[in-house]
């Protein structure tokens, strides 16, 4: 199946690359044996100065908040591209729903676990500055809860809850609000996205200044983004099954 020439090319490259990779790998420090100054400084800045007990979230939403804003725009662009490519899904004829009805046990499972999963996502987004998690993880969890509605309860139930307009508003408010947080720092005469809010008590939900604010906004943006994406894909799937052209 694989062409002979391709295999020879692979073997020749691997003969050079594998020993080099092994040599490089043998010189790595062990796990937990950290030697750079950057991580230690980030720990001091995030935990000691900003009062976030989760150094990762302090890094992502404070020290490197500008990078995260860029990532938000990448997600926004990706979701916009999905919406653009699958735009026919919404202009297509409204096909009457005849769900292959899910079994009662499956539906019950969904009814129990979808709210729990959504609540867990909200918890993650709210407590990013205190415990592992944050807006992205929370939003992605809530988005996956929407997918679980489709899996356990069918397209009609999914479409009733995952409505496009509220999801799009969430996404726009999340991404735009994040940028506005940055601009508000500028308006106060500080650098873009400088953390000007009070640091609070470490371990409190309202600690670490702007970190929980950005975390919630990112949670909104990711929930909206994932929701719109799933909605577009599942609408397109439904049209495909009902014989519509792409």
């Amino acid at each position: 199946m694989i062409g002979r020439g391709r295999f020879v090319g692979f073997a020749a490259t691997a003969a050079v690359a594998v020993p080099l990779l092994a040599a490089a790998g043998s010189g790595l420090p062990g796990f937990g044996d950290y030697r750079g100054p950057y991580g230690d400084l980030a720990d001091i800045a995030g935990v000691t100065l900003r009062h976030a007990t989760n150094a990762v979230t302090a890094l992502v939403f404070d020290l490197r908040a500008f990078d995260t804003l860029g990532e938000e725009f990448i997600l926004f662009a990706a979701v916009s591209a999905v919406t653009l490519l699958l735009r026919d899904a919404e202009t297509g004829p409204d096909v009457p729903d005849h769900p292959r009805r899910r079994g009662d046990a499956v539906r019950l499972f969904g009814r129990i676990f979808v709210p729990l999963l959504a609540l867990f996502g909200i918890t993650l987004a709210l407590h990013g500055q205190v415990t592992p998690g944050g807006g992205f993880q929370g939003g992605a969890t809530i988005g996956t809860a929407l997918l679980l509605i489709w899996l356990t309860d069918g397209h009609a139930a999914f479409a009733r809850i995952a409505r496009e307009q509220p999801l799009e508003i969430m996404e726009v408010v999340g991404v735009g609000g994040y940028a506005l947080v940055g601009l508000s720092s500028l308006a106060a005469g500080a650098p873009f996205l400088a953390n000007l809010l009070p640091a609070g008590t470490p371990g409190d939900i309202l600690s670490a200044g702007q970190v929980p604010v950005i975390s919630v906004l990112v949670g909104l943006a990711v929930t909206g983004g994932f929701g719109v994406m799933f909605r577009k894909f599942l609408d397109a799937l439904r049209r495909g099954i009902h014989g519509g052209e792409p």
Partner: protein
Amino acid sequence: MMPDLLLGLLFVMAAAGGAAVALNRKPHSQVYAMAFYGTALSLLFLALQGPDVALSEIVVGGAAVPALFLITIRAERALRRGRGEHQ
């Protein structure tokens, strides 16, 4: 000793999952291999004390991305069936 064993096992699982995705030729089984790979990576991140990335990986790599691929594969098959093409 015990942590090393666990880490070794998780590394092997992640490597096997990645290889399974790359070597598989059928889109359907490839997607399931990908979900396994995402879950294995997530467990590895957790064992390496990175719960934040583990959470992201289990949701994105273990659930969302494989689901999008499954939906796409199914939609494509349904479309072809609709046009009367087979296979």
